[in-house]
Every structure is written in structure tokens, then in C-alpha cells.
């Protein structure tokens, strides 16, 4: 195989891609590594934020900010609330030395290798030179798709969420 970096343009986008990927991987590792629940919640927030960064690089602005708003903002805060409001030892016990760990590591490596091999050998259809719609029309396109092609599923999801909301309120009422 030729130079894997052939054809790369070192512009902001690519640098950002590598930086963000690094942050996401780092945050994901830290999430597993931390022993304090609070720190874990923060790490997962950082992962969400990094994913949003990747979406931006893919020109999916709307998705990116929805991701920040809902995952990095609301869901992380929800987790923090849950951590603060529930009583537990905030520190996990250190993991036991376990032979299974080595097996796990081997399995992970094998999985990684398999995925890499698959990706390299899949005949991808050549990507379009331009994104299918101009950046500015991103939101409008999503809206159009949602409310025309997928109107029924969208409405169904809305109903489901409303039911969940009402259910939550009723449960909370009983508690009080």
C-alpha cells in the first residue's frame, strides 16, 4: 500500500480531526480509568463534546449542536444530579488483578484488527466531491425529511415522549 497520508491537506479541518479524535479517545479511556463517579460523568461529557466536534467536521452542524445541547448539556447534568442525589460510595474499589483481563485485551485487539481489515477491504462507493446539500441548507433539509418522508415515525416518537413525560410526572406525584 502507498503512503496512507497521500492526498491529505494539512488544513485546520484535518488538524482538528486528529486533535478531537485524540481528546475523545483520551476522555473515553479516562472514563474507564477514573474511580470517582463524578469524574466519570465529566469524562463522558467530554466524549459527547468531542463527538459534536467530529459532527461539525462532517458539516453536520445541526446534529453537532443538538448533540451538545442534549448530551453534553442536559444528559451530563442529569447524570451529575443523579450522582449528587443518590447515596453511594463515590469511589469504586480498585479492580482485582484477574487473568481474564489479558483475555479481554486480546479480544479487543482481535476485534480492532478485524474491523481495520474489513474497512480497508470494503469497496466504498466513491464519496461525492460536494456534500449532498449546501451547508446553509442543512437544517432545512433535515426538517423537510423529517416532516415529509418520516412524518409518521416522527409523530409517533413525539407521542411516546409525551407519554413518558406524563408518566414521569405521575410517578413523581405519587412519591410526594
Amino acid at each position, binding site marked *: 500500500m502507498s503512503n496512507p497520508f497521500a492526498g491529505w*491537506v*494539512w*488544513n*485546520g479541518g484535518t*488538524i482538528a480531526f486528529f486533535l478531537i479524535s485524540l481528546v475523545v479517545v483520551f476522555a473515553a479511556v479516562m472514563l474507564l480509568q477514573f474511580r470517582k463517579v*463524578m*469524574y466519570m460523568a*465529566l469524562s463522558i*461529557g467530554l466524549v459527547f*463534546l468531542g463527538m459534536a466536534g467530529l459532527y461539525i467536521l462532517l458539516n453536520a*452542524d*445541526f446534529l453537532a*449542536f*443538538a448533540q*451538545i*445541547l442534549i448530551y*453534553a*448539556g*442536559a444528559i*451530563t*447534568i442529569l447524570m*451529575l*444530579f443523579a450522582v*449528587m442525589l443518590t447515596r453511594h460510595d463515590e469511589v469504586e474499589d480498585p479492580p482485582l488483578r484477574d487473568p481474564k483481563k489479558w483475555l479481554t485485551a486480546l479480544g479487543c485487539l482481535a476485534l480492532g484488527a478485524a474491523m481495520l481489515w474489513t474497512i480497508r477491504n470494503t469497496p466504498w462507493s466513491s464519496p461525492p466531491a460536494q456534500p449532498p446539500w449546501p*451547508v*446553509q441548507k*442543512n*437544517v432545512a433539509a433535515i426538517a423537510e425529511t423529517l416532516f415529509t418522508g418520516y412524518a409518521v415515525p416522527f409523530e409517533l416518537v413525539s407521542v411516546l415522549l409525551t407519554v413518558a413525560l406524563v408518566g414521569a410526572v405521575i410517578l413523581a406525584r405519587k412519591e410526594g
Partner: protein
Amino acid sequence: MPFFQWVNDALTWGTLFRMLLGGIIVLLFLLGVVAYMLYFERKIIGWMQLRIGPNRVGPLGLFQSIADVLKLLAKEDIVPAQADRPLFLIAPIIAFVPSFVVIAAIPWTASHPFTADISVALLYYLALSSITILGIMLGGWASNNKYSLLGGMRSAAQMISYEIPLGMSLLGVILMAGSLNIVDIVEAQRRFMWFIIPQFLGFCVFIVAATAELNRTPFDLPEAESELVAGYHTEYSGFRFAFYMLAEYLYVFAISCLGAALFFGGWSGPLLPGWLWFAIKVSAFIFFFFWLRATMPRIRVDQLMTFSWKVLLPLALVNIVLTSVIKYWVNAG
């Protein structure tokens, strides 16, 4: 201003330099804005309360806030012994970074130098500002102080609750302009009329939710001195405290910019240059927040929640429905 239009350029040393220069200029400008916002807040509230306000440092006390900032920077950075040290140190930064980042989406003039032309600017604003809540909540928790914890919790609950009516109130404007981009919204107003008129209900919801989102009187519960001493930043001192203050005042500025751009036609106006019009409108908003602070007592925490969910949210929904129906009707007819 092509000099600062670097977004789509290849990354060269020149681009990097222009990037950094633009960033530093905006940063310094914002610091100046915050410093003099503080000064005017103290002056204006002073006058409203029959006092003089700062008048010692420099002519008319103009350097007072600069002196205050210097004092804060020179202060010892105290970390309470029982605090969660890493979180305590990082929380103000989490709170403060998004406050600067959101400014990027706000166009100050028609050619908006320094401003990212983001297609989803309003969503961007709402999303990023929600990160600040994280910083405030963590600061309250990490201080290991009961007042801080209560303040942090209240703050998170309040800001989350009011983010929803705030976002909903913007939807009316978005529907009318047909875009999430603030530049497009301002342009739409130039063609049609200031959205304050057709979106008056939306504006009312916006201004209330914005005040709550900013934790300002009468919604300043998170830092209600008389109950929680200083709320989430009770234990903070020195420049970490300054970070929280900076974030708070930057959001005042940012929300005022947003209000001016979405409801009052942004930079548009006769005779005067665009940036001046924008500055005047933003100042009016800021003045309004100061004015509120000098007038209002504080609302109670349960009333605050009830108000958000039972009054503001339904109003915002009604506004959305009305706007959609009218827009559909106008388009059809």
C-alpha cells in the same frame, strides 16, 4: 474585512497569525465590555439608590473595575481543605469558556468581522451556554460547602428549566425568519419589520427567561446573598471567582446582543453606522437588566419553577402555534 475571514483558508502560519490576532482582539474587547459594564452597573444602580457609585479610582471612578480585576488577579487562590481539588480548580474554567465561545455567533455589524457565520447560530448559542451550567454545578459541588451545594443545585435546576422557554421563545422568530442564522434573521427584519412587533409575546417570554437564565434579580436565587451567602461561588476567591463573574457578565452581554439582534433589528437603523446602532440597542438591554436589579425583590425558588413550567412554557407554546398558523395563512393567502 477579508483580513479576518480565515475560516475556509488553508492552515498556514499567516492564517494562524490572523486567527490568533482576531481572537485576542475580541478577547480584549470583551474584557473591556465587561469591565465597563460592571462600572455602569455600579454607577447606574448607585444613582437609582441615591448614591454616587464608584468615584475614587481614576476620573469619575472609571478605573474602578480595572482596579477590582487587578485585585482579584493578585489575590491568593484559596482551595478549601475538604474540597474536591481538581474539580474545584477546573469548574470555573468550564463555566467561563463557553461564555466566550457563544460570542462568536453574534454578528455585531452587517459584515460581521470576527464572527462565525454559523447556519445554526441560535442552536449553537443555546447548546454552548448549557455547558456553563455544568461548571456552576460542579463548582458548587466541589466546594464541599452546603451553601455552595444548594446554590449549585438551584442554579442547575433553574437554568435548565428556563432554557426551555428561552429556546421556545426563539422559535417564533426562527419561524418568521425561516432561518437559525442570526444574520439571516436580522436581514429578514430589515425587509419586514422589527420582530418585537409581531413577536411581542415571544419577546416577553424571552426577556423573562433570559433574566432567569442569567441568574439576575429577580431570579438571582443561586447566589441569593440573604439565603445562601453567595451560592455556588461562596468558597471561590481570586481569579477563579473572577472567572465566574466574567462568565456571568459576558452572558449578560451575549443575551443582550441576542435580544437586540432577534427582536430589534440588530445593526439596522437610520443615519448612524450599524455598529453604533447595535451598541445602543445592546446597551438598552443591559440597562434594563440593571434597572430590574435595582427594583425587584427576589422570587422564591418553588415559585420560580412553577412560573417557568406553568406560565412561561405554555405562553411560548401558544406563541409558536400562533406564529405558525399566521405564517401558514399568510403564505397560503
